[in-house]
Every structure is written in C-alpha cells, then in structure tokens.
C-alpha cells in the first residue's frame, strides 16, 4: 500500500507547480510579479495548514524535528548541519545579489499617465466625427504617426524596435480607451517636452506636433484613432 504523502510534501509540490506554471507563461513574467504571486501562494498554504491543529503538527513537526529534534544521526544529521550552514549563506548571497551595484539600470515603477495641465482638462474637440474628418485624420496619421505607432495602430511601426518603452498600442483597452480626447490632444501637441516635472525623468520619445499640425488636424487624428480602433474616449456624461 502506498503511503499517503504528508501535508508538507503536498505543500512543497503545490508551490513547485505554481512556480513552474508562472515560469511557463510567455512572454516571461517579471521577477516582481512572480515574487508577489509566490508570496501569496506561500501565505495561502500557511493559512490552510494553520487552521487545523492536526495539519499544523503534520506540517511543522517534521521541520522542527529535523532542525532541532533529538537523536538525529548519520545522513540526516549531516544534512541538518549542511542546511544550517547553507541556508544562512544562501540568504546572505541572495541579499548581496539584490543590493550589490550592477551594470544595469534599477527596477522602476514607471508612471504611465502623467497629469495634463489644467488648461487641457475638459477641452472640447473643435471638429466632429464626420467621415470627412476621420478620413483627413487617417491621411495625417499615415503621414506622421505610422512610423512609430504602426499601420495597425498597435505600436508596432517600423521604428518601434528602437524604442524602449515601445510606442503606445492604441488597440489595447488600457491606452486611449481609458483617456479623454483632451488628454490625447495634449500628448500629441506637446509630446515628451510638455511632460510635467513630477515623476521625471519620463521615458518618452513622442515628438511635439504643435508646430507641425494645426489644432484641427490634431483633433482629426484623434477622431481617426478612436474610429479605427473601435474604442470610445472616456467621458463624464
């Protein structure tokens, strides 16, 4: 008869499965997210185990016995000594590897949406949604924007691979669908030069178009972006 695995073994297998599953996701998840999901999973396991006294004993007794129990001999004793030496060293190495200076830029919690200046908030479009305006907007887009934002409006233009972060993907539900038209107007007109000082330095290669396009032309491009992607701008009414 096969012996039922202890809850300690089950927990370890469960955590390994979660970790493997997270590592299999493509494109790979950043370490910060894997760390967060693993912390949640370990917490979940610990909560489950500590609800019942029996499972708690089943889980912790082997660990306590192994680390501090009496009468351990042979391989088990050597293993205990090895772990007691290796574990603190590993913690030390892990800490060192996290804080030691590296030839890499530090991790960043990037701020995605800068706040527009007050004069831009609530600004009304000077052109309507007519087919003519949308068609004009498409022409301007293909003339000025396509190189970075792409012919599919997905941020995958010919010059996009040279940029980090890449140009905005307008088809993503998290970009222009979350913003008001006036916000887009500000970003197109002022580009990266008009970004506010808070959360600087900003990482944006967006050029300002205020000396290239008229206000009406900018509004027409905005009309085209929403029409072509099928998104609606954020409104408050």
């Amino acid at each position, binding site marked *: 008869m096969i012996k039922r695995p202890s809850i300690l073994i089950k927990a370890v297998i469960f955590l390994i499965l979660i970790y493997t599953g997270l590592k299999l996701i493509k494109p*790979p998840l*950043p370490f910060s997210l894997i760390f967060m999901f693993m912390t949640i999973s370990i917490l979940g396991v610990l909560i489950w185990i500590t609800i019942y*006294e029996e499972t708690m004993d089943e889980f912790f007794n082997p660990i306590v016995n192994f680390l501090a129990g009496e009468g351990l001999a042979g391989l088990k004793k050597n293993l205990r000594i090895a772990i007691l030496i290796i574990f603190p060293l590993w913690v030390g190495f892990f800490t060192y590897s996290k804080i030691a200076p590296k030839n890499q830029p530090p991790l960043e919690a990037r701020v995605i949406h800068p706040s527009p200046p*007050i004069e831009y908030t609530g600004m009304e479009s000077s052109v309507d949604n007519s087919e003519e305006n949308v068609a004009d907007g498409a022409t301007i887009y293909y003339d000025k924007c396509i190189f970075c934002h792409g012919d599919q409006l997905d941020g995958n233009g010919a010059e996009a691979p040279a940029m980090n*972060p890449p140009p905005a993907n307008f088809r993503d539900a998290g970009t222009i669908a979350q913003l*008001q038209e006036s916000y887009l107007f500000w970003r197109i007109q002022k580009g990266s030069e008009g970004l506010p000082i808070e*959360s600087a330095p900003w990482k944006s290669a967006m050029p300002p178009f205020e000396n290239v396009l008229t206000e009406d032309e900018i509004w027409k491009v905005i009309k085209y972006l929403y029409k072509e992607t099928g998104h609606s701008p954020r409104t408050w009414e």
Partner: protein
Amino acid sequence: MLVKRLRLEAIKWRYYLLIVFFSFLYLLFLHSKSFAEVAHQIDYRTIPFISSRNLIWIVAQVHLYFGAFVLGVPMFAVICEYIGVRTKDKKYDKLAKEFTKLLLAAFSTTATFGAVLIFSLIMFYPTFMKHISDVFYVTFGIYVLLFFGETITLYLYWYGWDTMMQRKRLHLTLGVFLNIFGTLIMMVSNSWASYMMSPTILSAELGFWDRTWTAVNNFTWQPLNIHRLISNVVFGGFIVGAYAAIKFLAASSEEEKAHYDWMGYIGNFIGIFGMLPLPFAGYWLTKEIYAYSTQMGITLMGGFLAWLFIIQAILIAVLFIGSNYYFWLGLVHRIEGGARYKRSIFIMLISIFICFAIWMTPHSMVASLEEARAMGGTHHPLLGVFGVMSAKMTVVNIAILTTFISFLLYWRANKKEAVSWLKLGKGVEYIVFAGAILYILYLGVMGYFVPAIVRIEKYSVYQVLTVLGVLLFITLLTILMQKGAHIKEEIKWGNMPERSQYVLILLAITIIWLMGLMGYARSAVRVHWHIYGVLRDTSPDAYSPSLGVACIMVSITTIVFLAFITFIFWLSHLGEKKEETTQHLVGALNSGDEK
C-alpha cells in the same frame, strides 16, 4: 469615590474646553484687520530638524486616528446596548459599557491633538489659515458648539450608565445624540479638508450664508463624509478587536478569556462588515475627484500616486484574508465538529486568494530593462489585463461575497434549522450566490468592450448593487430559515488558539497604516496647492514626498498612535484595577462589620 473622579474629570474637561474656546477666539482675532496685516507679512514659519509640514503631517494624522476611533466606537456601543435591551442579555450591555470606557479614555487625547493641530497650523501656516478662516469662520463656531454638545452627551452617557439602568430608552437616546454630534463634527471638518481638494467658486454676489454653504457643499464633501463615516466604523472595530486580543492573551481566568474572545469576534465582525461597502464609497469619492478635475484624478490613479494603490491593494488583501482566517479559526475551534467545514473553507480560501492575486496585479509592471524588453513594454500582454478597473471591481466584489459566505457558515454552524422548506431555502441560496458571481464576472468581462463611461456609470454600479442585493436577500432568508432553529451546541468562547489573537493585532496595525497612507494620497493629490487651483504652496516644502518618504512618515504616525492608545488603554486598565481593589476592600470591611 465616584464624586471625586467626576470632579477630577470635570477639571480636566474644563481645561480642554478652554483650549478649544481660546483657539476659536484666536481665529476670530486673526480675522480682524490688525491681525490680518501681521499674518500677511509671514506666509510660513518653520522649525528646525523636522519641517513644519512634517510636524503638521504627524499631528493631523494622529488626530485623525483618534478622531476615527472616537467617532466609530459610539456607533457600535449604542447598537450593542440596544441589542442588550432587546435581548435582555446583560453581556451586550457590559460590552457596550466597555466600548464606551475605551471611548472616554481616548476622547481627551483626541481633543488635545486637535488643539495642537490648530495651534500648529496658526503658527506655521498663517496665510493659509487666514484664507480658511475667511471662508469657514462660521463653521468654526458651529464646530465649537457641536463639540460642547458631544462632550456633554458623552459625559451623561458614560456617568449615567448605572444610574439610568432602569431608564434605558433615555440612555439610548443620549447615545444616539452622541453619535449625531460626532457625525456632524466630522462633517464640519470634512468640509475644510474637501474644500482644499475641490474648492468651489465663491463669487462676490453670494450672500453670507450662501457663500459658506457653497464652500461647505463642495464636490467631494458628501463622498468624503460617507467614506470617512464607514471607515471610522471599520477602524474602531479593528482597534477594539486588537484591544480584546491583548486582553485575551493576558487573561488569567477562563471567563475573562471567553469574554475577550467574544469581544474580539465582535470587533472583527464590525471591522470586516464595515469594510464591505467601503470600496464602493471609495469608488464614488474617486469618481467625484475625476469629475471635478481630470488632472487630479490622473495624478491619483494614473500618475505619481498610482503605485500607492498597489500598496493599498496589498493592505486591503491583508485585511480581508486576515478576517476570513479569523472566521475560519473560529469555525474550527469554537464550534464542535467544525472540521466538517474543511472542504468549504478550502474553496473559500482558493477563491479569496485568486481574487487578491488579480486584485494586486498592477497594470504596469515593475520590471528590469531586460524584463520590459522581453514583455514588449511594461504591460504584460496576458496578465496586464488584470491591471485595469474592470478586473479589480470584479474580484473585489467576489471577495466580498466569499467573506459573506464565511460569516454565513459561522452564523449557522451551531444551529439546526427546523423550517419545513429548508432544502428549498438552501437551494435558493446556492442559485443566488452562483448567479450573482456569474453575473459579476460577465459584467467584468464586458467592461473591457464598452466605453469607460458605460463601465463606470453602469456596469460597476450593477456589480455593487448585485452584491448589496445578495447580502440583504441572503441575510433575510437566513433569518427566516433560523426561525425555530435549536442550538446544537454552545459556542465555546475562549477556545481559540493564540495565533488568532495575533491576527486581530495585525488587522489593527494594517488598518492604521492603511488609513494613514490613504490620507497621504488624498492630501498629496493637491500637489503644489494648499487649496487646489486657488492658494498655491510657495513654501520650501512645495514638493510631493516620494512614496518611500510617505511610508516612513505614516509608519511614524502609526507607532505614535499605537504608543498613545496603548498607554491610554493601560491607564483605563489601572483605573479598573483600582476599582476592583476598592470594591474588594469595601467588601472585606463590610464582612468584618457583620462579624
């Protein structure tokens, strides 16, 4: 003895009231021409080592913590007392009295911090205070009157507890008035804070009262009132829970243990059930902020404060997970045969953890250069979808329903229902829960395909209404199903493992920290304005502190508050000991006399 204590209390209170009264007088003088001229010459003053802003930050935040406690606790003290009157169960009355004892102990410190805050503001921000007093001086007067009202009702409520034992209706009425005064005080001070965020246009044509009312009734006043009212209850509940936990851990008898276990349970219950509508109130407040100023809304949710909401998400997850864990421990340890709920607890645990894994997933990931390159930007194409509001609203609603199921199981665990339609009732419950969760998921998914305004104005509201509807319907159904139910076994109060008490302490620390951090968000959203768009901050402190600095400052305020509240509770405990000793001595003397 009582008379002596009353006298001492009265002297102490006269002192506090005098401080408030003179603060008010000083503000009136400030309003006069000569004082105004002096105030104009100096816009800011500062103090060495700790800037004036940091000082105000600490004092205001600690005052707010105490304020939240003294406004939250009377609400459930009165409810507890009412339940005691209705059920004629004396333990509710004892609990209500214990709540009020904590309230009385914290009340004077709240007033002291309030006085320190007002003096500090006058000292360090004279121009700002002049502007505020120009607009709000009428409300200062109202505030003082309300404060008198609250103090008097609190005195009568506490010291009249035993005297009015036979006149409970009168005593309860006093409790209700205590709450009314407290809530009105909060609303008055909220008008100042909300005006700083969303000032209204005060044109010269407006009359005296219209002008004041326009300033008070600004865009974020009502949502802030609702949000703070609910969070005060949550705050009070968790702090009481922690108090009970410490008393439980230090208990020397089984009765004492049972009493404080029960008190801790009530504290946690109040805290977590107050939490259920809190996300909706917060959602309304944020919606109003966006509607008032898109710039402010983006600064808060998409700009430099956006990462704060990931920290908030983690803290809210700690509160929900901790509370559920406490419920499950209670289910297993206090109820005979609680092991039968293993499967249900497992399903709820998985549900809660999946919900909070999604709840905490940011839209834009913290990533190294290589990781960002591999993902094609800081948005992950697969998991990035969990970062937007549609996903967040969906999972938080499901987590709330799961928490409610935890409570339902606990509620019914030791009872045997006797109604003939029990099977049908349970079937309806299953269908309602399954239907609600499916509907919330459907709205969440559809939220990605509709304009933002549809999601905000309709789908999110439908999700909230669904949850509230389920909460109401299932509660009523359960009450009907419990009619004539007999108790299988008594709940074994006091039979809880010690780790459950540390959870209660953790919950209290988390809520203090969370409240402080969100206070920073509400204040920092004004960026370089004292009063948004009206009065600019021109001091050397006119910059927004980073999240790291904010976390340190909030941690300091948390420690200061915890130190004060621990000291105050210890003092009240000393009083209790003294009373016990006196009673013991009197008893011994009486028995000696009899001999």
